C-alpha cells in the first residue's frame, strides 16, 4: 500500500511537469460529462419524464456511475492503457521486479486529470440530492456509499479484463469499449428503460444494474419485496472483480509461455 502511494507521488510529479496540458485536460475532462449532463437536462425540459423517472432521479443514477467511472479511471488507468505497455515491451520490466504484476500495473499510471470529471459528477450528485425528497436513514446512507464503491470496483474489473485480452491480441480491444464507455453511458440512465436482454446481461453478467439501478430503488422507496437484498446488491458488483483477477493471472501465465 505504501508503495502504491509512492507510485502515485512520482506520477503526479510527472504529470504536473506539463502544467498547461494538465489544466486543459482537467477542464476538458470536466466538460465531456458536463455537456452530456446538460443534454439530459435539456431533454427533460422537452419531455416530462424518462419511462417514469424524474430528472433528479436520473441525475442520482448518473452521478453514481460517473463517480465510479472517474475514480477507477484515475486509479486503474494502468490497466486501461495496458496495450501500450505490451507494445513497448515494458511488461518484461515488471516481471523482473519482485512485486506482483497486479500492483505494478496498477501503479504504472494515474490519470489525475480525471479530477475534472469527478468534480462534475459530484456536482450532479449534490444537485440530485438537494432536489430529491429522500428521508435519509443509516441504511440508505450505507447503500449510497456501497453504490459508489461498487462502481469503482466494477469499472476496475472491466479494465482488468480488457487488459487481460492484450496478452492475446492488441487489436480488437475496441470491443471492450462497450463495457467501459458503453457501460458508463448505459448505466447513467436507470436500467429499466432498456430491453429485457440488455437488462439481464447488465444485471447478472456485467452487473452494472446492481451498482446503481437496484440499490436506487431502495433509496427512492420504490423497492418491492426484500429491501435488504436491494440494499446489499452493490456487493454483487464488487464481487465481479474476483473473476477478473483470476483472468488476469491466467493472462500473465499465457504471456510467460508465449512472450507475446
Amino acid at each position, binding site marked *: 500500500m505504501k508503495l502504491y502511494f509512492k507510485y502515485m507521488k512520482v506520477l503526479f510529479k510527472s504529470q504536473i511537469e506539463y502544467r498547461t496540458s494538465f489544466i486543459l485536460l482537467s477542464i476538458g475532462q470536466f466538460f465531456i460529462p458536463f455537456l*452530456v449532463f446538460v443534454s439530459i437536462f435539456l431533454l427533460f425540459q422537452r419531455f416530462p419524464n424518462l419511462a417514469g423517472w424524474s430528472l433528479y432521479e436520473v441525475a442520482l443514477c448518473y452521478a453514481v456511475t460517473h463517480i465510479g467511472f472517474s475514480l477507477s479511471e484515475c486509479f486503474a488507468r494502468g490497466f486501461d492503457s495496458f496495450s501500450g505497455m505490451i507494445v513497448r515491451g515494458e511488461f518484461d520490466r515488471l516481471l523482473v521486479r519482485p512485486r506482483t504484476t497486479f500492483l505494478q500495473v496498477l501503479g504504472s499510471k494515474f490519470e489525475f486529470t480525471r479530477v475534472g470529471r469527478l468534480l462534475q459528477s459530484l456536482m450532479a450528485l449534490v444537485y440530485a440530492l438537494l432536489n430529491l425528497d429522500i428521508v435519509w436513514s443509516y441504511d440508505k446512507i450505507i447503500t449510497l456509499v456501497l453504490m459508489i464503491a461498487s462502481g469503482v470496483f466494477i469499472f476496475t474489473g472491466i479494465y482488468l479484463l480488457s487488459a487481460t485480452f492484450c496478452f492475446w491480441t492488441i487489436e480488437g480491444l475496441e470491443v471492450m469499449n462497450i463495457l467501459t464507455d458503453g457501460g458508463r453511458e448505459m448505466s447513467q440512465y436507470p436500467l429499466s*428503460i432498456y430491453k429485457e436482454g440488455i437488462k439481464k446481461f447488465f444485471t447478472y453478467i456485467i452487473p452494472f444494474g446492481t451498482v446503481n439501478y437496484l440499490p436506487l430503488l431502495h433509496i427512492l422507496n420504490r423497492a418491492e419485496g426484500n429491501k435488504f437484498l436491494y440494499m446489499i446488491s452493490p456487493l454483487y458488483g464488487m464481487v465481479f472483480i474476483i473473476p477478473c483477477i483470476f483472468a488476469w493471472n491466467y493472462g500473465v501465465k499465457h504471456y510467460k509461455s508465449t512472450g507475446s
Partner: protein
Amino acid sequence: MKAYYSFFKMRLLKGLQYRTAALAGVFTQFFWGFILIMVFEAFYRSTSSPQPISLQELIQVIWLQQSFLVFVMLWFRDSELFSLITSGNIAYELCRPTSLYGFWYARLIAQRLSGAILRSLPIILVASLLPNPYGFSSPVSLFSFGLFFVALTLGLILIVAISMLIYIFTFYTMSPTGSLLIFGVLGEFFGGLILPVPLMPPLLKSIVYILPFRYVADLPFRIYAGNIGIHEGLQGIGIQLLWIFVLLSLGNLWMKNALKKVIIQGG
C-alpha cells in the same frame, strides 16, 4: 496526386491488417446506437405531443451517426502529425516538394475515408436488417439521397478543414491533447452529436446554426431522414460551401504564418 493515392492505399492496407479492430469497432458502434435508440424511445414514450423530429427520423439519424462516425468526429486524431509538430521534425516535411497544408489535408481525408470504408457499410447493412421501428430504412426519395450524398461529402471536407485548424493551433501550444479534447467536445456538442439539434431549445439552436459544426453531420443525416426538406437542404449545402471556402483560406493563411514562426525559431 499519386503520392496522395499511395498514402490512401497504405492506410487502407493498414486498416485491413487490423481487421479484428474494425470488426470490434462495428460491434461497438452498433451497441452504442442501440442504447441511444432505447434511451430516446423511453423519452418519446413519456409524451404524446409532437416533436420537431419524429422518433422514426431520429433513429435514421442515429444509425447514420454510428456508421459514419469517422466522417463526423472532430477528435479523430493523427498522432504522427502531432508528434511531427511537437518534436520539431516538421523540418523534414518542409523539405518535401508539396504544399504542407495540401499534403496534410489529403492525409487526414485519406484516414477518414479508409476508416469509413471498413466500418460504415457493415453497420448500415446490419442496421437495415433490424425489425421495423429500430431498423435503418431507405431514404425518402432518390433526390434527397443525392442531396444527402453531396452534403455528406462536403461535410467531410468541412470537418477536415476544421480539424486542420487544431493541428495548426498545436504549433503554438506544443501540446495537442488538451486543446484537442476541449475543441472536440465542444464541436461534438454544437454539431448535435450529443443532443440532436432539433431537440435543442430555441436559443441554443440559433447558436448552433451560426457555427460550422452542424453542417458536418446534422445536415446530411437529417436530409436523409427526411427531417430537412429539399429546399432547406439546398440552402444548407450553400452554407456548407461558404464555410469550406472561409475555413480553407483561413487555414492556409494561418499555416503560412505558423510555419514562418517555426522557421524563425530554427525548428
